[in-house]
């Protein structure tokens, strides 16, 4: 990964790096984008301040908010995009709706350790869809494109159907867009450098994307 964007600094955050979207997809889905930051972090148990923040978020988040969630601009934008790419957002939930569901189901935002907790805090606060990869396993810049004939996702049997939307680095698909991660590219116990990725869709302000990435990065540092 290119960058050097993860130097921990107080009071200043570098701008997230912007990935590219295949031109024909950009024409079909104006507003679709991808941005990321890199962070030095060790996966593991979340420190007490992060756990406390999750508890605080749990106390602020009620059933009524979960029901009204899909009417809010950012969660609605992801919901609509899911529809537009053929997914049922009530089955394959958007990240924020999945967290809302888990909050109601479990009674709280449960801690799953880092980096999951950092991502969850940022997702709940901003609604922006985030995910994490092992930065050392990515090669080059990230992009959103459709799969080429014969491409597959590591760890999944068979080839991807042509035209499947994927997140990819400069060599291969690393994840389905809003789906599973390729084997070996996810965050594992030995990961030391993480890439936090935000997928932007039409209706999600750039400021929300940057805030989500900074929030997740700051929580991880």
């Amino acid at each position, binding site marked *: 990964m290119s960058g050097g964007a993860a130097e921990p600094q107080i009071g200043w955050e570098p701008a997230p790096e912007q990935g590219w979207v295949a031109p024909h*997809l950009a*024409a*079909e*889905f104006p507003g679709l984008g991808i941005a990321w930051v890199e962070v030095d972090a060790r996966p593991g148990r979340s420190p007490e301040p992060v756990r406390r923040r999750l508890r605080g978020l749990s106390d602020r988040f009620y059933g009524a908010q979960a*029901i*009204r969630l*899909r*009417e809010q601009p950012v969660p*609605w934008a992801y*919901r*609509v995009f899911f*529809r*537009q*790419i*053929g*997914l*049922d957002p*009530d*089955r*394959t939930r958007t990240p924020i709706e999945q967290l809302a569901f888990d909050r109601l189901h479990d009674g709280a935002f449960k801690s799953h350790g880092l980096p999951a907790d950092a991502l969850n805090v940022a997702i709940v606060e901003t609604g922006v869809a985030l995910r994490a990869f092992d930065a050392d396993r990515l090669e080059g810049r990230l992009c959103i494109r*459709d799969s080429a004939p014969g491409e597959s996702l590591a760890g999944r049997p068979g080839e*991807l*159907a042509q*035209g*499947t*939307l994927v997140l990819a680095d400069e060599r291969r698909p690393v994840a*389905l*867009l*809003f*789906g599973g991660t390729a084997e070996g590219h996810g965050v594992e116990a030995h990961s030391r450098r993480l890439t936090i990725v935000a997928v932007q869709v039409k*209706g999600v302000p750039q400021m929300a994307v940057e805030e989500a990435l900074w929030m997740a990065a700051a929580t991880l540092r």
Partner: protein
Amino acid sequence: MDGCGDAAVIYTQARPMPDLLARESPAALRVGADERLARAELRRQVGRLERQLAGLVAEGFGRVVIEHRVDAVAAEPRPLDLGELERLRDELADRIADARATLRERARTEADNRELLRQMIASPADFKWVQVSRDDLGEPGCGHWHSRPRLGPLGMLMGWWRVRVSSGCPLAGRLAAVEQEVEGQASEKGTGAETGCVPVPTAPHRRG
């Protein structure tokens, strides 16, 4: 008839059948640009319908079940073609129409129940043992209005009917105390006594 014959000749000359039949690809249809615009318009409509459906689901939550599911078109994320977008748009529109009908029906029922409650309060003796809950009126929270005789059997004989208003939802602390008490009794008796919970009817009904 001559005119018709002439028209047929003109049609055949202008648009030969093989050309009409050989339309297998979008390129052959020569509608690429138009289809992109059509897809964009359908996506816009899907977005608008999704927002309307979300509003209706939220409006009906807790009052009535709104069927809002529209099955996934694709197993994995991919751009949808024109036909798929049209089907998606139509299904969302159907869901919205159904949701509106369901909410209208529910609103009618709630209005009837409000009228029933108004009459019941005005003349409790005409609605003996009828109970109307807040849920029947589409209002949040617990509680109900119940037409009951004053002083029990004596009131029944004398025709002293009145509407009693319940005190609302039980406090969480009191519920916990009841559960603890029930559990304590069950453990003392060594039986699996169920927790005491009085069901609240969802529609007004007459008793007796």
